[in-house]
């Protein structure tokens, strides 16, 4: 069996008296899409924020690409290649596609021995186009501000940005929320493409059809615990709902 990309061992995170994540262990392997399911307050967001460096776990450890990792800040996780796409996408709506793909990491041209540095717009435009094409995303113009794009197109920009910056694990929080049906399909298509390129994806979602449409495996959390972990092909909607509401719990059976 291949080594997991991400390996979470006995992770616990408390907020005061509340145990948000309780002794969860979980592996994510290269080239798979795993869905993370659970009702509101089940602890999925907290778990993910521990992985992406927003929170620091109280107990347990996180290994990324075989190395024990401590992320003090989100930037630490990103530098390692863990990209998280939240629902608000972290796009500057007033800037264009290429500016957003390079946001915070702008390419520069140097003059006078680096004394004067200007933005290398051409290079950023070229690279952005290539990044989008590699995901088969087509835009009429890359110099349009983000606010003139549709929700699906914005998702595409956020995904393309993560891929361009060499994401080795992609975490997506409810990527199809607020999208129309055709746009949802496009986003799911993008997730499949990511997998085909070998990038593992963790998909946090409430939308069960999405889970069945793209994921290879899934994990369900309830009240901070991992209640089950299955291959997607080995389960069905009704069963998942029962796990989510607590009618089924693999940990109890054991």
């Amino acid at each position, binding site marked *: 069996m291949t080594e997991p990309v991400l390996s979470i061992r006995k992770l616990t995170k408390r907020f005061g008296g509340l145990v948000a994540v309780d002794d969860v262990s979980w592996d994510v392997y290269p080239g798979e899409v795993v869905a993370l399911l659970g009702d509101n307050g089940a602890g999925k967001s907290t778990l993910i924020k521990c992985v992406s460096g927003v929170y620091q776990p109280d107990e347990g450890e996180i290994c990324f690409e075989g190395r024990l990792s401590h992320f003090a800040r989100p930037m630490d996780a990103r530098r390692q290649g863990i990209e998280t796409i939240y629902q*608000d996408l*972290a796009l*500057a*709506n*007033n800037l264009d596609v290429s500016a957003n793909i390079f946001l915070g990491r702008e390419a520069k041209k140097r003059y006078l021995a680096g004394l004067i540095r200007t933005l290398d717009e051409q290079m950023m435009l070229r690279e952005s186009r290539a990044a989008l094409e590699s995901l088969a995303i087509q835009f009429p113009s890359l110099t349009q501000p983000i606010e003139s794009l*549709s929700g699906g197109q914005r998702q595409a920009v956020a995904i393309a940005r993560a891929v361009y910056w060499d994401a080795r694990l992609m975490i997506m929080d409810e990527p199809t929320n607020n999208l*129309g049906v*055709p746009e949802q399909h496009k986003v799911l298509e993008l997730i499949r493409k990511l997998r085909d390129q070998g990038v593992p994806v963790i998909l946090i979602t409430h939308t069960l059809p999405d889970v069945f449409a793209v994921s290879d495996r899934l994990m369900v959390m309830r009240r901070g615990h991992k209640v089950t972990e299955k291959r997607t092909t080995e389960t069905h909607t009704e069963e998942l709902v029962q796990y989510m509401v607590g009618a089924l719990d693999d940990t109890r059976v054991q």
Partner: protein
Amino acid sequence: MARVEMKAVAEMAPAAQTLTPPKRFVLALSRSWAWAFLALMIVFFVVTVPIVSFGAVNFLTVRNSQNILVAITPILLLGLGQTFVIIAAGIDLSVGWVMSLASVLSALAIRAVFNAGLPLFPSVVVGFLAAVAGAGVVGFVNGVIIAKLKVPAFIVTLGSSFIVRGVALLMSENTTVIGLPPGIRAYGNDALVYFIRGEAGGLHFLAAPEVSGELLRRMDRILPYPVVLTAIIVAIAIFVLRKTQFGRHTYAIGGNVEAAIRTGIPVDRHIISLYILSSATAGIAGFLSTLRFTAGSAVIGDALLLSSIAAVIIGGVSLFGGAGSVMGTVIGALIIAVLTTGLVMLNVEAFWQFIVVGVVVIVAVLIDQSRDLIIGRATRGPPT
């Protein structure tokens, strides 16, 4: 943000592609109306000023154009840093008082070092450094409190403006610092080029020709030093905002500060730099006024804050951040200055100027909003 997101979902397709011709027209108008308004205003004065004076006076003269350019320098310098700050969704209410403080500081510095035996030009340089450094300290403190302690910019800069005012009055003792070397007047008022109209005239560079009487009346000063210095600073500001990472980050912070933080932009440091920049340009304005009036004044900039913000808004900078340009602010300042000079030349009651400026400010915001309504916020962003 959420509202915008929903709207975009409803539309699905990029809004800009579905514009009807009338909407395209509104869009074009909204982008260039300030230019058009300025042009119309100049045409108006070019036509009316000779009528009112029975043909004796023209509006579009070399001297008048230079007067207007000199008049916009303080408004423009205050508005310049403000443009950056407002694009990043902040505001700096302290600039007017910082200008006053810088005027006092530069006057005290020039007087001290000149009296200590330093030659005139180095003394003026010391005055410049004192003004910019003193102002910069205020901007640094503003920026740190805003960025690190997360106090709203409005409150921080309002508070600091009182402090700055008090310090300026204390340091100046009598509100004016006098006893400066009279020679500094040249730096604040002399010009690059002198032109004497008429047969005996011609161009003279750098030094004013020794003339008197009637010839003196026919001599125009073209590109006075404060205008030259301000123009250089404006050019740098345009370059920085449009062509550099600093400018890009300024727009990004104004557009979505969360995104800026998450993409690793050093937001706190950037915000501190912006307030230092804003104070520094106000400091230069204070320095120039000290040279211009050969005295430091603790109240020189008090009245200028609102004019400078008006110029910024007329120029199309959104108070919500994320949009605007330096050229817009230049146009805004020009509109205000052309109005003042034009109305005085028409001998119109001075109060009309305020009414017109007020109307123009509101119209500027209305046009900005109608643009958003018509095309769903599809057009704002840095000039491309």
